[in-house]
């Protein structure tokens, strides 16, 4: 059951990522990215990370990607212009990509950590555990992040505002 779920959502994830690359319209790329994020949330659940899975849906799929789609709608972003890639990239790039991928897969499968296997249903990343850690061990980082978000809000407002002086 576990392996079936992993394969299903892993393939959805990989398919979405590839679709993001081959689609020419930004809206289709955005939709496939939403599929990637949704299936990643379910993979997090398989890994037992309950809180992170829900936050992934709320923040990534529910807020960030809505913002992307909003901007695509606002700017009415149409089809991407076709640019000619260099011939060298095609000759060297594709075989290089395949060999690199094969090397990476074999190294990970041979030398990667294998002793620990993951069981389904071991939910240990509940909201209270994550929150406890966030407000004790990582309190400083948390507070600094809030400053970062504040600066980002101000930056977005300043950037998107039409200048009235000119």
């Amino acid at each position, binding site marked *: *059951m*576990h*392996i079936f779920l992993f394969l299903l959502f*892993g393939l959805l994830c*990989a398919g979405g*990522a*590839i679709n*993001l*690359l081959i689609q020419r319209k*930004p809206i289709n*790329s955005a939709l496939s*990215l939403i599929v*990637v*994020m949704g299936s*990643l949330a379910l993979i*997090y659940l398989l*890994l037992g*990370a309950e*809180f*992170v899975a829900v*936050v*992934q849906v709320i*923040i*990534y799929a529910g*807020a*960030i990607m809505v913002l*992307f789609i909003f*901007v*695509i709608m606002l*700017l009415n972003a149409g089809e*991407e212009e076709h*640019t000619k*890639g260099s011939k060298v990239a095609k000759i060297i790039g594709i075989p290089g990509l395949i060999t690199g991928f094969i090397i990476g*897969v074999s190294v*990970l*499968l041979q030398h*990667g*950590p*294998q002793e*620990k*296997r*993951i069981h*389904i249903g071991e939910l*240990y*990343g509940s909201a209270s555990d*994550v929150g406890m*850690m*966030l407000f004790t061990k*990582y309190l400083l*980082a948390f507070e600094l*992040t809030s400053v*970062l*978000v504040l600066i*980002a*809000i101000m*930056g*977005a*407002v300043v*950037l*998107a505002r039409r200048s009235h002086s000119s």
Partner: protein
Amino acid sequence: MTIPISWYLLLSAFLFACGVMGFLIKRNIITIFMSIELMLNGVNLSFIAFATRFGTLDGHIFVFFVMVVAAAEAAVGLAIIISVYRTRETLNVDRVNLLKL
């Protein structure tokens, strides 16, 4: 039936590689930005996989921070995209090649 953790790492590496590729071959500035999000997602997956592997929650906290930073980045980045589109009227990064108008 359980699965080894390296499978998760493989998926994570694949997502990251797709993100890098999209960043390099795409010409639309919004799609490039989405490729960056894809890379961040790939990294998040490996964080969670390692958190499960070592039985700690630190990985979850890092993913949380990555999400917050990604949200801040999306807000600022999309604002930049809007202002670029206002001045250049294009989303193609090849056309945005002047520092000053």
